[in-house]
């Protein structure tokens, strides 16, 4: 039974890691992400076979249980994820704005030569 759970967990980690490694992004971030992913996968596999390991590491860091250590790591990872996706959303918005503005300006009739230009937001 234990063997089966271990097998499923390891497979899940490998598949998840592979899927993430293939993702896009610029080269530097991609490399960092890949390193982190490999480290994560390694720890995940290790913890499956040596369940006590995380608790020992946690104790070393002054944290009660391995579960807590995982929870903390998860929170940090989540915050990083939030920050990076927020950043990406902003970049995307800036791009869309430029694109939409270009379309808007191209479609509008060019202003004829005249003195002033009151406008309306």
């Amino acid at each position: 039974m234990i063997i089966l759970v271990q097998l499923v967990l390891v497979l899940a980690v490998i598949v998840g890691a592979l899927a993430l490694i293939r993702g896009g992004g610029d080269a530097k971030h991609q490399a960092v992400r890949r390193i982190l992913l490999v480290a994560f996968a390694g720890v995940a596999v290790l913890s499956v076979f040596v369940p006590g390991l995380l608790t020992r590491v946690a104790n070393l860091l002054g944290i009660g249980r391995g579960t807590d250590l995982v929870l903390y790591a998860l929170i940090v990872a989540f915050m990083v994820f939030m920050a990076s996706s927020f950043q990406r959303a902003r970049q995307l918005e800036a791009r869309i704005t430029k694109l939409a503005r270009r379309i808007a300006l191209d479609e509008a009739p060019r202003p004829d030569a005249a003195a002033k230009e009151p406008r309306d937001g």
Partner: protein
Amino acid sequence: MFNEATVIGSVVTGLLEEFSHVVCVDDGSSDGSAAIARSAGAVVVQHPVNLGQGAALQTGFEYALQDPELEAVITFDADGQHRVADAAVMLARVRAGEADVVLGSRFLEGSADVSRLKRLVLRTAALQSRMSTGLQLTDAHNGLRVIAAPVVAKINLTQNRMAHASELIQQLAELKPVLVEHPVEIVYTEYSKAKGQSLLNGVNILADLFFR
């Protein structure tokens, strides 16, 4: 403008009585505002999708700058809360060489007819821009402004949504044009009251203040 079909026609008509060129940036309205503004005589620049007021302002600036003879840009909210007469006087001050930028202010003279809570929000916004830019402004979030063309050319708004007002003030603070405030009256109709920025925006203003 964004979905202002009920008022945009009269706003454009009112502006055309005083000014010869009215540009209306349609921010992806779905209620036919663009067609109404066009038939009222405005040049309509249409965002294909809704981007926000700051983006619309920047689009309007860039459109106006295509005209080499551009003298000044007047920003005027599409919901009819400003008075054309105020805009005309403000433009006259720029033309007279008194200033490069004239910003409308509700609080310069006497008291505007706003609720206490709203006043607090607007005052906080003004305080925020004062603290972050050093400009002594009494009303940082007034949509009525007259900006001379050379200054307009140097403005680049990247905040698409409501934060653009603070961003504009910040860029003006760095450009250091001759800047004056001009007392204006805001026509708080039922319509504009219903549409006006939420008081919750005060939270955003405070956040801007502390997390810059």
